[in-house]
Every structure is written in structure tokens, then in C-alpha cells.
């Protein structure tokens, strides 16, 4: 097994057929090593969401190959993809996507419901508490989302993403709904995870947030137009 966690070659995604065909992704090649913190930037319609969906195993590519953690996931069945998402991926969404009527603890326990091995109730609760503790919410276990601030809600979502200890965290505009103070908190947590060795791929359109990542990939018209480790500046042209 090579050292790439994500290895994508010749990836295309076409919606519609013939004349009406829209090439959302028009041949993308990208590799992400284990332990990297990557930001993906691009306008809406650039194809970055499509790329993110395929990386997140929520969608099939039209053609091309995608190896995740050494396995070809591009041709997997829906059930296999569900298992891969459960095992290999942790999602962080812009809108948190917590179940409103469940406590923070129950929300964090959700992914373990779908684990292949039958985790006992005691163990899944212990793991969820550990995960919430790691994001500093050990005193908010039984709060419901509407009893928490936006930043706290996103931390619950991060705890949920971490609870199955996946090799890859996917964050889709993680600070998009947060004020600047909460944004800093969240980015600090992501930095902490990165330092701990977790691979993070984050979509954002805010260049100061993207600047937290060690590497920035810019997407435009379904193609990667730049891929660099020189901070966010090279992507600035995108916004002019």
C-alpha cells in the first residue's frame, strides 16, 4: 500500500446526456497523503461540491478511478459505499446536521449504530463521551442542539465525525454558519486533529479559512486549476 490516502485519476462526472450533458468534473487527478490538511476552493458551480461528494463516497464518478485508503471505491455498490462512509469517513457540514430532538451524546452515538461489528451500548456511550470530551463538551452531554451555541453544535458534529476514528475527515464549509469567534474555535480543533495525524479535506470559499490548510486546491469549470502549498494567495485570482 502506498502512502496516499486519496488517489484520484482521470475522474469525470457528467450529468445528462448528449447535447444536454454537463461536465461537472472534466478529468481530475489528485493525490492526498496521509496526515495532510487540504482545502478545496472554488466558485459555486465550479465542481468542488461534486468532487467533494465523490470523495465522500456519496456519489459515483462517471469515469476515472478513486482509491480511498488503498481500495478502489469508484465502482462500489451503494451498500459497500455506505460501509466505507461509516468506517473511513467523518463528515462535518456547514449546517451541522444534528438531529434536533436528540441529545449531544445521542447524536454522537449515531454513527456507531451502523458499524459492521455490533458495538455494545456501554461501549458506544463511552466512545461518544470520549469523543465529546476531546472537543471540550464533556459538560454538555445531555444538551439538545437548540440548547447549544452554533460553535458548540459544530463541535458536537466534529465529535460525531471522530467517533468511529476514521482516517479521513471531510469538512464542507465548516465555519460557513458561524461567527468569527466560533470559527476560530472550530479551526483550532481541526488544527489539533491535523496535528494528531488525521487527514482533513475541507471545502471553503473563504480564503482566510483556507489559509489554515497546508495545501490549497482550486477548482474551476470541473478542473483543478492550481494545487499548491504556498498559502491561499495563488488562489486569489479565482475571486477577481
Amino acid at each position: 500500500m502506498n502512502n496516499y490516502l486519496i488517489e484520484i485519476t482521470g475522474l469525470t462526472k457528467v450529468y445528462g446526456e448528449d447535447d444536454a450533458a454537463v461536465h461537472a468534473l472534466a478529468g481530475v487527478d489528485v493525490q492526498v497523503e496521509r496526515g495532510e490538511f487540504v482545502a478545496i476552493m472554488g466558485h459555486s458551480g465550479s465542481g468542488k461540491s461534486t468532487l467533494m461528494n465523490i470523495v465522500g463516497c456519496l456519489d459515483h464518478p462517471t469515469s476515472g478511478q478513486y482509491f480511498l485508503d488503498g481500495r478502489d471505491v469508484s465502482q462500489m455498490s451503494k451498500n459497500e459505499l455506505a460501509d466505507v462512509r461509516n468506517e473511513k469517513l467523518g463528515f462535518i457540514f456547514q449546517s451541522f446536521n444534528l438531529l434536533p430532538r436528540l441529545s449531544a451524546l445521542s447524536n454522537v452515538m449515531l454513527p456507531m449504530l451502523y458499524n459492521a461489528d455490533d458495538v455494545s451500548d456501554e461501549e458506544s456511550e463511552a466512545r461518544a463521551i470520549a469523543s465529546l470530551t476531546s472537543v471540550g463538551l464533556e459538560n454538555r452531554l445531555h444538551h439538545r442542539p437548540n440548547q447549544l451555541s452554533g460553535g458548540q453544535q459544530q463541535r458536537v458534529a466534529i465529535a460525531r465525525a471522530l467517533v468511529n476514528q476514521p482516517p479521513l475527515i471531510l469538512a464542507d464549509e465548516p465555519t460557513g454558519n458561524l461567527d468569527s469567534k466560533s470559527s476560530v474555535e472550530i479551526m483550532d480543533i481541526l488544527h489539533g486533529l491535523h496535528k494528531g495525524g488525521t487527514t482533513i479535506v475541507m471545502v471553503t470559499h473563504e480564503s482566510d479559512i483556507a489559509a489554515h490548510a497546508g495545501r490549497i486546491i482550486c477548482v474551476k469549470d470541473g478542473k483543478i486549476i492550481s494545487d499548491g502549498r504556498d498559502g491561499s494567495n495563488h488562489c486569489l485570482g479565482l475571486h477577481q
Partner: protein
Amino acid sequence: MKFRKIFRTAWEGLMLNKVRSFLTTLGVIIGVASVIVMLAVSAGAEASIADQINALGANLIIVAPSRGIPGASKTLLLDDAYAIGKQVVGITGVSAEQAPPPQNIRAGGTTLEAIPLIGTTADFPDVRDYTVGEGRYFTADEDDRKAKLVVLGAGIATDLFGTESALGQTITVGTTKLTVIGVMAPKGLVADVDYDGRIYLPLNLIFQKYMPVSPLRADAVRTIYLKAESQDKIPSVISQVTALLAERHDVDPAKPDFTVQTQQDIIATQEATTAAFRDLLAWVAGVSLLVGGIGIMNIMLVSVTERTREIGLRQALGARQSNVLMQFLIEAIILSLVGGLVGVFIGVGGSYLFGSLGTMRTEIVPLSIPIAFGAAAVIGIFFGYYPATQAAKLDPIEALRRE
């Protein structure tokens, strides 16, 4: 994903919206309860009809002129009853009856208008299991002599004489003075006939004094009742009576001008009527159960739409299509099973309640409980499946994007 976890997830899903879950279940509760209650009501009605018919007397065989055959109503004669009594083996008594038009009766200052008169032979109390409460019934000899005697129904005795004894009193029936020799024990309504509101006279006296002048033979009777010695003698008695009367009436035994029936025959006829009634009730109840099922489907579809994001999230977290399908299917099944269970309790309780109110009799049909409960379970699966597949089919990307 283990069943226990799916079940718990489904249960939590329902508990999140308790009022809605309860209202959804209500349709099934009402459906199941009404199946049980309606079957109990119709079974109760059948049982009370059977009881009434049995109350006519035990091991009773009823001979009556055929309806619908011209002239048949005058062919059954008192002499036929005597012949049966003499020649048929296996009976303990024969009672012929005739009912003339009602008469006004008078005792002292009291007049009762239009009281039904029944002329009977002496075996009447024995054959019809109708005991004399006070005094005695007239004898065969008194009947033959057209003795001017009368036995009162319990209600008539009270109406005429209050708490005073009626025995030995003289009453005027029509224009004839009769002596009261007995008062029947209270019997009440049997098959819509008020036995206590009638008076009983020797049949031959009825023929002489009270039958209107008509083409009817003066000694024609409307019914002859026979009491068989035992249940197993009944078939033999029926064939003897049929043969004897066919010979006496000079008719083909296959096409007689009279009918010979047992209580069982009458009960069977009544049951055919009530069966149609019962089937109708069962259909109505079944339809309400079906409507309950549609209610479940409706709410589950709403629930799937409302919880689209939740479904998308669960899929993103690793839920397979089958996990989502099972979650929603089990929600629907829980709704219908809980509804079924509560419905059974309410149905059984309601049946007892209706029965205890006294206006109608109910008898719970044991089979109706598993049938109603099973139907609820089937409805849960059937109507829960479609919404569950709608949930499982959702595309996680679309579902997560939904507001």
C-alpha cells in the same frame, strides 16, 4: 446493524412525536376495537335469539300449517293433535294452540282492553316449560267439557287484582263469565311475545265462544307443540308426525300442507338472517381498519418527507438502504401493533361494557382477537412498506441539501 438497535431507533423516532404517533395509532385502535365489538354484538344477538327460541320449551317440535298454500291454514285440526298424542312414540306431551281475536276483559271495576286469548290443551304448561305460579291449569277433562275456566298471565293477574289473590275470582271475557283457577309464573317476553300479558283458556271453549264465524273450520288450530322425551328422539318423532299427518290430510309427505320444525331449525333460520347482519358489521369494521392503515401510510409519508435531512444524514454516517427501510418499516409496524394491542383491550373492554349496560347482549368471539390483531400487523407491514421504500430510495446528496 442488530434488530435491537433498529427497533430502538424506530421507537425513538416515534417517541419524538408522541401526539402524532398516538393519533396515527388511533385509526388502528378504532378499527381493531370495532371489529371485536361488532362481532361480539352480533354474536350476542345470535345467542339471545337462540335463548329465546329455547325458552319456548325444551326438546320442542313445532307443527304448523304451511304458509303460502291456499287453504292449508284450516287443515291442522285439534283431532290431529289427539292423533299424535295417541299414535306417536317418544313424546311426553302434545299441546295444540289457537288464538282468537283479542277480547276486553273485566273484573270488578277494572276493564282491560284487547287482551290476547290463547286456547290450549291441558299439556300446555308441561310442553312449553311454563309453570303455573299459583292455583292450577285446567285438565283434559275440563277442556273436553268446555269448562268456563281461565288461567291468567302474571301481568294480567296483577292488573286486575293487584296484590289480592286472583284465584276463585270471576272475570268477564268478552261476554262470558269465567272462573280464575290459576295464575302462570312470570315468564316475560319470549320471541317478542308477552306471555304475562295473555290469558289461557281451554281450547274447546275458545272454539265454541271466541272463534269468529269464518271459512276456517271451528276446530282448526294454529300450532301443535310436541315435547320429545329426549333430544335423540326428535328425528324419529318428526318422521312419525310427518307420516301420520300426511296420511290424515291425504297429502304427499314430500309436499305436506304443514311444517314440522324443531327449535334448531328456527335458530338456523334466524342465524342465516343475523349472519348477513354480522357480515355487514364485520365489513364495516374491516373497512375502518383499512382506513386506519391508510392513515399510517399517510403519516409515514409525511414523516419521511419531514425527515429527509435526517435520512440523508444517517446515510452519510453509513446507514445502508436496508437500515433506513427497516427503520421506517418498523416504525409503521410498531404503530399498528401497539394500535392492535390497545384496540384489543378496548374492544374486549367495550364489549363487556356494552353487555353490562343491559340494552344489548355481547359475546366476545375468541377468534376475533387474533384475527383483528393479525390484520393490524399485516396492515402495518403493507402500508408501512411503501413509505419505507421512499425513505430508503432517497439520494443522500439530495436529502442533505433539502431544507
